[in-house]
């Protein structure tokens, strides 16, 4: 990141989307995207920002466009 650049706060709707997707578990989403359940938990709590590739994979798992899964909080 460029020095002095503003750090973006990125939120997500993963918790709600999992609920809507027949109460998909974190483990199921992890298996669908090829990461660990802990990584899904960290992303869901906005403690870890995924790479663009993983973000697209998560969106694909819900069959939603990226901006319905992730959004800017500021």
């Amino acid at each position: 990141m460029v020095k002095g650049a503003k750090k973006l706060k990125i939120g997500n709707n993963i918790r709600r989307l999992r609920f809507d997707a027949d109460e998909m578990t974190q483990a199921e989403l992890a298996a669908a995207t090829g990461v660990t359940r802990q990584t899904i938990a960290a992303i869901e709590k906005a403690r870890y920002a995924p790479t663009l590739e993983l973000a697209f994979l998560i969106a694909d798992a819900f069959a939603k466009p990226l901006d319905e899964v992730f959004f800017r909080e500021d």
Partner: protein
Amino acid sequence: MIADLTLRFLYIILMLKLLNIASAILSMEAHMPFGLKSIWFQLATEVAVIAWFLLRFSNAHATGAFDGPDGLIVLGKTVLWFIAATIVAMIAAHIVGVIVLAIAEGGKEPDTTTDERDRAIEARGEKVSNAVGGAGFLGGILLMTFGYAIPVVIATMFVGCLFGAIVGNIFKLRSYAEG
């Protein structure tokens, strides 16, 4: 005398830390990823090796094993032996870790899946480890400029490297806890 007391004090602190790590291993939660569990085993091994080295070094230093014309040869052999022992101990800890975790999980093979978050944490931990290890090397050079004996300088560098690995692993554990 002061250096000897400091070494013994460090040794006691390390032994207490080892007990603390052992209790953390015993109370590990089943859902923790394998990578995270394996860091605890690495940490226990590094602390045990550093404590063992400090004990052996302080005893040898106190008995004058590093003095005399063959002192540096004895020192070189001791450090080389410990480098080899560290490598063997790390491999053994990994194998023991896999076996213990497999037994704890009812014979199931542990899930060794790693992903981008594990790799990011690993890379950041390595950076911290290298920085601290480098500081240990510089510390050894600094001690040399203050006129400390070569055995103390070499021991500082070796302990600095191991300490770097310990700090790197603690950093990784903290990163996992923070997300």
